């Protein structure tokens, strides 16, 4: 077992655990924290894969921005740990679980049925990414600018609390 594999296993375990806890825990604040852990672990995976730039962006955006955003969202809606009454939809839960698990099964079947060649590995760089962004994917880049503008306007309009 190589170090890479060990790192992978650790990070994967953290990510999966974080994800599961996000879904399964009761207190809302714990959930957001576990989400942050999962995001961290994922960025670790990026580093493992040699995609440092993406890893850093991951930490900045997800762990930094989005998690905080969710904390804000949590704070602005429910301050205390709310407890929902018993979920009346047991069958719904079951069907949701079955759906997810069977989809997982399908995906794993698909993944395992692939016979992918093991390549040496490609190490990207921020420069390469920048060149692509301002080169081939320029249209998409401009597009994402508009996307963010639209999202910004939309989010402000919808969330804004009028003075009155």
């Amino acid at each position, binding site marked *: 077992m190589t170090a890479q594999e060990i790192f992978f296993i650790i990070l994967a375990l953290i990510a999966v655990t974080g994800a599961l806890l996000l879904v399964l825990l009761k207190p809302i604040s714990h959930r957001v924290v576990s989400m942050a852990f999962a995001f961290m672990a994922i960025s670790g995976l990026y580093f493992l894969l040699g995609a440092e730039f993406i890893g850093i962006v991951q930490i900045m955006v997800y762990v930094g921005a989005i998690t905080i955003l969710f904390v804000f969202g949590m704070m602005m809606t429910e301050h205390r740990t709310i407890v929902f009454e018993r979920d009346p939809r047991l069958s719904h839960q079951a069907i949701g679980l079955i759906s997810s698990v069977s989809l997982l099964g399908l995906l794993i079947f698909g993944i395992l049925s692939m016979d992918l060649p093991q390549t040496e590995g490609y190490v990207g760089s921020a420069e390469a990414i920048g060149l692509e962004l301002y080169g081939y994917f320029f*249209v998409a880049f401009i*597009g994402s600018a508009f996307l963010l503008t639209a999202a910004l306007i*939309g989010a402000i309009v919808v969330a804004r609390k009028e003075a009155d």
Partner: protein
Amino acid sequence: MLAFEATWSLMTPEIVLGALAMLVFTIDFMTGIHEKKPFIGRLSIFSLLVTAVLVLVMNPQGGQIGDTFLVDPFAMVFKLIILVGVALVIMMSMNYLDRNEDIYQGEYYSILLFTALGAMIMVSSADLITLFIGLEIVSISSYALAGFKKHNIDSTEASIKYIVLGGTASAFILFGMSYLYGLTGTTSLYEIGAAMPELFADYTVMIMISLLFMLGGFGFKVSMVPFHMWAPDVYYGAPTPVTAFLATVSKLAAFGIIIRVFTLGFESIYAEWAFIVATIAAITMIVGNFIALTQQDVKRLMAYSGIAQAGYILVPIATVLNNFSITVIIFYSVAYIMMTLGAFSIITLVSEQSGRKTGMDTFAGLYQRSPYMAVAMAIFLLSLAGLPFTAGFIGKANIFLLAINGNMLWLAIIMIVTSIISFYYYFGVIKQMFMAEPKPNAEEIKVPGGIQAVVTVTLAGTVLLGILPNLLLDLFTGFNWMI
């Protein structure tokens, strides 16, 4: 790197529209929040029309910027449809916004302009990333637009439903795309298409999973069964002009990319997915029309009708993918946008004048209250039902022809039977308008200029295309849609 060597003039319409959208936003920003600003709406319409003219002027020669931005007849026609559609939506919104002052006008218009831009990018892209960005511009703007009446329970509820389900759909699309990228190392649809036969032979299951994930995600946007569940609630809750937008521009743009992706990327394995699309088309037509039968609310009814219409548009895709089938789809799209927008503008009018109710009974005796609107609505509904001398009929007839020509008789039969079933609910509305007496307290309907204009334009389009379809068909037949 092709970065700055490409023929950027191809993007002129998009660039102009982007600039104008920002201009609209800026002007709105500078003119305060609470005033009535009808000029913003007019400016938006003007922007869209200018862009449309630019599309007409600049685009016909065609060309491309890498694989990320294509200018071909397909893109051009879809862009025109989108621009005209959004312009009409804005036109019908002007009255609506005057009556609903809690909606921020400037933001509303500029976001609509952004969606137009996004949709334009979406339909003229042959690259997964660009395409996805365009799609997300439309989607995220739509989520916000659906919730724009933020003090309204229905509107926000519609919005949250839309964003949760829409976000999930996006995740599915991306998940599918990620496999596609991983197995080909490219996001260009041309290259993916070129590699597809070999790829499919090697990774059958994964390719199909990715294909179906994408189909499901796009299918969410066009509201095909079983990914249609959001549509009725969102259509019902969203502000009516936004519903019109979702039912037309958003849906058709999504059809645009379905066609693009499946034509360029998956044509070589057509046999593997055509029957799935056919089955889904059949189920979509059946479910949409059947549920619509029991609806008592016009907006919900239009939602289910829209689901059914999506099924009709899927039929050509399921039958054969060639120039001809695209002609058929585009013709139907033109017809669809005309009749649906016309119908929605009248629904806007009537519901706004009936205390914001959208029950079927608000249409009672519309003929007495406003004959022109009633007749126009009747023609739109007849067109949706596919009755003669309307654009909808020609569109459907084309689809039949195609389906039967492509040995999909069973699909054609399902289509025609469900169309007949649809008579029931479309004529239910007509019955309300013409046969029922108006409610005693129903006010005289005053038709604002914007709605009048939308109705007149769409009515003219619906009838003209119904009687002289060759105006468009001859033009379309000459196109080689995809370069």
